[in-house]
């Protein structure tokens, strides 16, 4: 008997007696003979806690994490510092172990957190309403497109090539479900090609999707995209990096209808990609079309202020096949981490951290682009991530840097054929000038070495 169950032999006897059966097996009589597994499942035998811990630690040590190297990889998730109070709160039994607040009288804690979270996201994005979270970034983009599909019932979706490749891929997958065609809008000078966009727009376009900053780190002219789309009454969906919104204009102030994105930078761990949360904000108009949980304010029988899950008639458990989304279990705990982080950062901190990234990013970009064999991929304004071109095979350069304890960035060629020589470098408040200088040293040497090697070979 493992330590998680409590059934003693005495318990079992008494309980089977009360049930009126002679054995546990009898309770499984309902399973037809032919459907029973006639052997034990094949798994390693169970182990004591200490052994499982040791095994999971062994696996952890086979990974090179941001604890083990200086990393400049971003591309959708970023190595930000998670303040200790976020962990503490996320680990409190009271937040960690309950489920969706179906019984509001005993869930005011979480419901109020959702309400606060919605307020914070609404403030960040500059949009009137927010839900309480969706899964994560790329599926948030797809969820926004589904909303557009339901709202506009139009067949085409235009997506900028500057949108994260995972978001575009997710959209493609999901669009099969909504019978929509996803049309890509190329880049012009590394941002969404406005002419191509205008060209592609038409009255069969349900939505236009753009990302701020885009995958190449460049600041998009979101307002121009929105204006163009709105001429055709298409919805505008902006996928944004929330931690840039202290210094970048709120998408909601630039005319977007829906702003969604990956919440990980807000106090969530990297966790090899999840769990984190997706945020989902909209103009008032789309409140009743949103996916997921929404907390709303109300009063109790005595007039006390309180919070409930609201507008549930949107949801699968009430509306079933006519629901606005199928989402049920979402990312409540991660969203809690998000709002606690934003409270910790605060009104000034959100600007300061953005400004710090901005300045360091500029420094890093100029410093690296000054290296032999390294150029900027583009000159557009950037906030926290930028792209370079290397005059040497990117994979080999990365390999050399890794050997020096520096993860120099993301090889753009993994997602963009046209930038096979591209390197995407991300900055966070954890990457100091010294780290950047170290990167410059290591990257410069790696590029030089590869060029030498190529020279020798050539």
């Amino acid at each position: 008997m493992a330590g998680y169950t409590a059934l003693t032999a005495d318990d079992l006897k008494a309980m089977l007696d009360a049930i009126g059966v002679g054995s546990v097996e009898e309770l499984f009589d309902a399973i037809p003979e032919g459907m029973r597994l006639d052997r034990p499942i094949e798994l390693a035998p169970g182990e004591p806690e200490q052994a499982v811990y040791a095994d999971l630690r062994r696996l952890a040590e086979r990974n090179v994490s941001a604890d083990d190297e200086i990393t400049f990889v971003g591309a959708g998730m970023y190595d930000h510092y998670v303040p200790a109070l976020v962990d503490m709160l996320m680990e409190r039994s009271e937040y960690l172990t309950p489920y969706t607040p179906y019984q509001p009288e005993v869930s005011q804690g979480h419901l109020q957190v959702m309400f606060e979270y919605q307020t914070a996201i609404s403030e960040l994005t500059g949009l009137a309403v927010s839900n309480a979270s969706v899964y994560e970034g790329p599926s948030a983009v797809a969820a926004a497109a589904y909303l557009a599909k339901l709202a506009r019932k139009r067949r085409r979706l235009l997506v900028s090539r500057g949108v994260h490749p995972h978001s575009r891929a997710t959209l493609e997958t999901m669009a099969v479900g909504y019978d929509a065609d996803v049309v890509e809008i190329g880049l012009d000078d590394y941002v969404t090609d406005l002419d191509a966009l205008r060209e592609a727009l038409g009255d069969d376009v349900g939505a236009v999707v753009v990302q701020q900053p885009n995958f190449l780190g460049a600041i998009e002219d979101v307002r121009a995209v929105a204006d163009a789309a709105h001429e055709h009454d298409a919805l505008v969906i902006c996928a944004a990096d929330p931690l840039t919104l202290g210094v970048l204009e709120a998408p909601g102030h630039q005319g977007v209808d829906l702003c969604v994105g990956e919440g990980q930078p807000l106090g969530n761990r990297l966790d090899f990609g999840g769990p984190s949360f997706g945020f989902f904000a909209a103009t008032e108009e789309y409140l009743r079309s949103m996916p997921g949980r929404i907390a709303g304010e109300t009063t109790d029988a005595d007039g006390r202020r309180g919070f409930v899950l609201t507008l549930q008639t949107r949801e699968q458990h009430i509306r079933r096949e006519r629901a606005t989304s199928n989402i049920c279990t979402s990312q409540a705990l991660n969203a809690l981490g998000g709002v606690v982080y934003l409270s910790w950062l605060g009104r000034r901190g959100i600007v300061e951290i953005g400004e710090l990234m901005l300045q360091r990013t500029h420094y890093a970009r100029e410093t690296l682009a000054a290296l032999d064999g390294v150029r900027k991929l583009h000159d557009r304004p950037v906030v926290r991530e930028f792209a370079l071109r290397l005059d040497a095979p990117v994979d080999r350069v990365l390999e050399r840097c890794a050997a020096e304890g520096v993860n120099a960035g993301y090889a753009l060629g993994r997602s963009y054929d046209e930038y096979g020589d591209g390197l995407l470098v991300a900055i966070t408040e954890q990457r100091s000038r010294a780290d950047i200088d170290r990167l410059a040293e290591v990257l410069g040497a790696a590029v030089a070495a590869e060029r030498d090697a190529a020279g020798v070979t050539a």
Partner: protein
Amino acid sequence: MSVAETPLQAERATTIFEKGAPGRRAFVAPELDVPHVDGLIPQEARRSEPPRLPEASEPEIVRHYVKLSKRNFDLDSGFYPLGSCTMKHNPRLHERVAALPGHSRLHPLQDPRRAQGALELMFNLQQALAEIAGLPHVSLQPSAGSHGELAGVLLTRAYHADRGEDRRKVLTPESAHGTNPATVTMAGCQVVKVALDDTGCVDIDDLRDKTDEDVACLMITNPSTLGIFEREIEEIIAIVRGVGATLYYDGANLNAVMGWSRPGDMGFDIVHFNLHKTFTQPHGGGGPGAGPIAVSDRIAPFLPVPLVVRRSDGDDDGRPEFDFDFDRPKSIGRLRGFHGNYGVFVRTYAYIRSLGAKGLKDISDVAVVNANYLLARLREKVGERLPLAFGERCMHEFLLSGAPMKKELGIRTLDLAKRLLDHGHHPPTVYFPLGVDEALLIEPTETETRETLDAFADAIAAIVAEAEEDPEIARNAPYTTPVRRLDEAGAAKRPRVRETLED
């Protein structure tokens, strides 16, 4: 007057936006260690007014959220028999191992050669889930059950499309969880409802009537959301297979049958796991979870990318032993960013390693014993007022009908649920599944003690007895919670979904 945090909140609830004062802060910014340059962001892209986030010191933030937390009922403090949700004990070991920096600070785009531990874990988890499901191919990517369902229906469409068919009908029993029909719509298909017979099982005749060559798939939960193992599951499968449709197994209730029976062996093509249910990821107030799927050979080519593979030629060709496989030309593509909720996988893996095959079967045994015991206690005490909706026994959960109670005592299932709060228990799932009047779905799970089950049965009996005397008590319950019944209709009519800020 400010008074102690009593169960009934004496003070108006105030949000973090109402705390603090202008200029207060918790965050201390790292020093600017590079030369400051102006104008890096063009004026029109620069934010003019900062978002009005809270301004509070660290102690204020800690107090605020710690105090709020105390207004939650949680599994570490009490019984939480929420049917269909498998609210089992969450071992703290899992939080510890998930927090190891090698897992928690690992970037998803780390070179696979430098993420071999994570990939090994994912590979092993794929294998374990495949073995548990009896279906050889696993994608860990879906973020929750409903996401797994969506993957499943999209896979079904891809499977049929690959054979040149465009099937769009999906059969779902009336008792299906809401995510099933919602998923069907999102995947561009149509729900075809299948009735239940008077034993709570799928009505075979109705199924036969509705099954034709346009049917893409049958989605079914087994044991069903009524806690019943589908009696005629073999026949059901034969009928659906007969028209060339796929079979989708909603695995939300796997906790009942692990080690006893496997969806794959039954003949299913696709199953989703709710790792947050069966494999005890803490529910977090509504996530995170994960909804991996296991599929049969015929579905495998369409699985989302990437999958994790082990290359026997590992070290030889410089390729890593464990790797992502993106080279799957028939794949439906991606369901989300990166590789799924890895942190959840770590916990699940720890759980499977802790229990092993025997432990997993024990779980099902005890889950079913606990449910049947609680059922027996309740039938003995309140069987008349709250009869079992169907049959005599149950699997890991059971469905009571509150209809007689409502008729005879004038209290609804909702009232019973609210009054249970005063007894310190979380209520069961109520008004689900549909089709049973005043439904009450009770899932005790295997981690509860006999004493807890007895106490719960006693509480239900006490509430029923109390209602025989005075139904008003339950109708106005709860009384000892932080707030009393809330005006949900009002909330929906005039939605206030964020705090209004002054400046």
